[in-house]
Structures are given as C-alpha cells and as structure tokens.
C-alpha cells in the first residue's frame, strides 16, 4: 500500500509542480533587423531570462529577459565593434538590454493537448542604452510538460532610446526602427 501511494505521488509530481508558479530559466536567440534604404542588417544575439510562470493563470507571469550587448552579431566583426561603441549601444556603460515583465494579458487562451499554447500580451519595462521605456509585446507561449518555448516580436525606435549613431547614418544606412524577434526555451523546475 505504501509503495502504491509513493508510486502515485511520484507519478503526479510533475503535474503538481506545474500547478503552482514554476521557476523557468530560459535561453535562446534574439534576432534584430535594421532595414534602411541603403543597407539591410540582419543580426542575432543571445538571450536568457528567469521567469515565474503559473500555467494555470498565465496573467501571473513575471520575470526579466536579458540580452548581453556583447553577444550581438551582425555578420561582420567590424560592424559589431561599431554597434558596441559609445556612439551606438555603448556596451561598456550599458552592457545589457532587458525586458522586465510587469503585467500579462491573455489574448488567446490555452489550447492544445500534449502541447499547449497560449497567446499573451506582455507589458513591462524595456531598457536599452540606459533608457527605460514601457513596452507591450505579443508573446506566444508553448509548453509540453515542463518544457517551455517563448517567442515574441516587436519593434523599437532608436530615437526612443537616445541612440543617435553617426550623423546621417540613421534613416539612411541604419533603420530608424529595429525589428526584434526573440525565441527562448527552457524547463520548469
């Protein structure tokens, strides 16, 4: 009887773990695209984050996602150097880009059986180049048991974050808006 009870407890353990907010460490890729008339730049960076997710109440998601400026790559090491320089992102002073989630709205409730998916709208503080602004972004959350995938896409304006670059470059060779796409995955503890 004792063995049966123990077996039942262990069998239900993962489900039980997801019934309360779970700590999820995620890691992945940020893609960023600058599309200006003279030049289109498609770059990537490494992202990571620590989230608290209540799979039964997704509006309670909280946490912070971080991208280290030093991991940003544009396909050209020389250009990456410019990107990190004081005239652009100033990685020495502002080494990280962060998004801290403050509120979540469910725009498409959870669907699916083995793999579940929900579409959310996350609002939070986006910090870039030392400037923090509110940002709302659509987020797709998919999970299967403890495995979690998160994707989001949004645009940011360089002007909003006091990124001026070299005179005459923004709007001509670098887009005024940067399209950002983030793909992360991790496992609930």
């Amino acid at each position: 009887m004792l063995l049966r009870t123990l077996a039942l407890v262990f069998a239900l353990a993962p489900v039980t773990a997801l019934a309360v907010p779970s700590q999820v460490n995620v890691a992945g890729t940020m893609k960023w695209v600058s599309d200006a008339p003279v030049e289109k730049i498609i770059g990537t960076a490494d992202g990571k984050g620590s989230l608290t997710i209540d799979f039964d109440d997704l509006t309670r998601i909280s946490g912070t996602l971080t991208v280290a400026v030093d991991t940003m790559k544009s396909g050209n090491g020389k250009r990456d150097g410019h990107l990190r320089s004081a005239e652009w992102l100033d990685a020495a002073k502002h080494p990280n880009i962060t998004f801290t989630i403050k509120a979540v709205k469910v725009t498409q409730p959870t669907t699916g059986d083995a793999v579940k998916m929900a579409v959310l709208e996350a609002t939070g503080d986006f910090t870039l180049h030392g400037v923090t602004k509110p940002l709302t972004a659509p987020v797709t959350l998919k999970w299967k048991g403890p495995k979690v995938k998160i994707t989001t896409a949004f645009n940011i304006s360089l002007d909003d974050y006091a990124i001026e670059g070299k005179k005459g470059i923004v709007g001509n060779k670098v887009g005024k808006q940067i399209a950002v796409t983030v793909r992360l995955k991790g496992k609930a503890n």
Partner: protein
Amino acid sequence: MTRVSALAAVCLFGISSAHALPRMSLTAGSPCITCHTNPAGGTGRNELGFESMNQVGLWRYGDLGLDFLDAERHTIAGRVEVGYDFRLLVARLGQLTATADESGEKIVQVPDYALIPMQFQPSVAIQFTDWLKVYGSYTPGPKTLSDGVVCDNVFPGQECFEAALQFESPGLPLVRMGKIQPSIGIRLDDHTAYIRGDAANRSGPIIAPNYAEWGAETMYHPVSWFRVEAAVVKPDNLDEALNGVSETADLGAVAYGGRISFLPQLEFGGEIETEAGDDDFDDDFDASPPAKPTVINTWVGASLFASGDFNLVTGFVGVGGHGGWEVRAEVSRSERTTTHETLNAMVAASYTPVDWLSLGLRAERARTTTDRDERRADQYVASLEFFLLPGVELRPEYRLVETESSRFGHAVIQLHTFF
C-alpha cells in the same frame, strides 16, 4: 618565345591601383558606400570605414603600445578624411631571356625576384555640408618622381586621378560629378584581372584599373535590395584604350553607362512557430538553444557601357554569408567597330575565418576573336590576405597563366599598407 610573352604580361605592370574588395560587401551584406566615400568602393574610406579598418589585425596598435598610430585619428575637424594606399611587390620583374646552347637547345632564364614599388595613392574627402562631399585620389607613375611626369599611366586608358563632387541626401538619388569611374560590373581594380581585359592584348585592358572619365553618375538605392546607376561620361580614356595603337572603335562624343543590381538577403532557419504542435518538443530539447537564422547575402546584376559602335555588357552574381565566405561570378562581352569581340568570365571565392585572414581563389578565362584569329588566356590565382596590424597586410599569391601556346606559374608577395 611564347613563354617570354606570358611572363612579360605577368610582371611588367609597374603600377596597380587599390583593389576594391567585393568580398567585404558580400560577407557583411553592406554596400561599398557603407565604408567607402566612393559608392563604387576602392581607396578613400569614410569615418565608418576607417573605424572598421582599425579593428582588423592580428595585433592592434593599442596592444603594442602604439596608440598614436590609431586610424581613428585620420579625421580632421570631423570634415576632412585623408588616407593613402601603398603597395610593395616582391615578384620577378623583367622578361625571360631565351638563348640556344651549343646543341641548339633553347635555354630560358627567369629574372630574379625584386622588390617593386607598386603603388602609392593618397586620397582625401572633404564633407562641406551634410549633402555635399568632395573626394579625390591621385596615383603617380614610375616616371613621376624620376622625370616629373605628373600623369604617368602604365595602361592605356588608365587615369592618374579621380575627383568628384558627391551630392548625397537620404531618400534622394546620389549624384557624383567629375572625373569618375562609371559603374561597370563588379569593381575590382586589379590590374591582373582579365574580366575587363583583352586576351589579344593583355597589357591593354578595355577598362584599365583606375579607369576614369569626366562625367556624371547617379545612383538610386530606394530599398536595400535594389540599386540602379546611370552615367554619362566623355570617353577620352576609353578612346585611348581602344584606339591608342590602331583604330578599332568608332566612339561617340559621350559614353553611356548603366548598372542594375538586385541584392536580396535570404534567411534560413530561426522561424517563429505560431502553431501548436508536438514535433518541436523532441528529445534533444535540452541540447541547444533555438537555432539562429542563417543569412545569405546575394547580388545579381548587369551593366552596359557603350559609346558609338562599342559596347561592353556585363552580368554578375554573388552570394556570401555571415560565416565569412563568398562566391561570385562575372561574365563580360564587348564588341567594337572592327571585328574584335571579347568574351571573358571569372569565378572567385574567398573564405575569411577570422577578420585578419582571408583565403581567396580565382579562375578566369578571356577570349578575343578578331578578323585574324582567336586568342585565349586563362588564369588561376590563389591568395592569402594576412592583416598583421590594422592597415598592414601581407598578401602572398600564386598565379598560373595559360595561353594557347604557353603555361607559366609565378609566386608573388605583396606588402600593402593603407590608412
């Protein structure tokens, strides 16, 4: 005897010009104007170009305590950019000599290797207003210092200087006026390249390195994947190249040029999944983070340069990736008044595993058909570009040239410094 002429063609070019590097554009996906003043590339870097240059080198000046050599100091008052391009070549200079021994057997003597000053090309660009820039460069020749010949061009049709007013404003077509090289195919500026040469006269290319004419060109680049250039020039140097020795082309008062380029960037992988499914939560979920997209830069285009009965048509294609690799091919065909048709092709590839080292391969074929005969020349080049310090490059090359009657291999090494 034929071997003698082959060697002469390889070695007797005293002055070259700055090599435009299409590989930079194809691997980074950036047009030449991102780093160069001249939208067609070549000597004369803008501020971004100098800063880029400063980051390429096995060693940096700062590592050696030589910060005062830092290339960031090239700009004067934020408006004047100065630079130079200097090349020294170690190669066999001179002609093969052929003598017969007592039995009548031909003995060929190869010249020794020599250190050859190949080029010194200073350049300057002045930004007068946000929309007006003046730029220029000058290339002295072998007799400039010794005999005071200001314009001592080695090739017929070569120009010793390029100078232009450049009007550039975001959203509007760029216009440059002055002594300019119109956009023809992919600018290479390599005096050893056959793509715009003539197999029947390898010391007299159709379009010489540093070719330039008085005229104007406009470039319109409305979106990142499309660019078009149109030029009108006075073809004095083209006339010298085609008619300097004998009249072969009846040129008009002006020459017209046009180039159209498509530069789409292709992206593979890294797609966002928006549908639920169980195929993406597989067993290797923990193995790696989501894949990053692979970006392929492409360049497909064609150009036409024509005057009177002469025309030069070029088609080109190139692909390159962020991993530092690129492959490009170009075909060019020319006709003129007399029966003198050229059909040349080039395939080139390079791989840049680290910023300071690039490996290159190039194969070229040149065919010229005249009313007398058909001549051909093939060339295979393997090279290394080794950047010791920012602006200091060693470039060993091995070059194999084959004609219908000869085959000759030649190793050279070039020291290239630029600022």
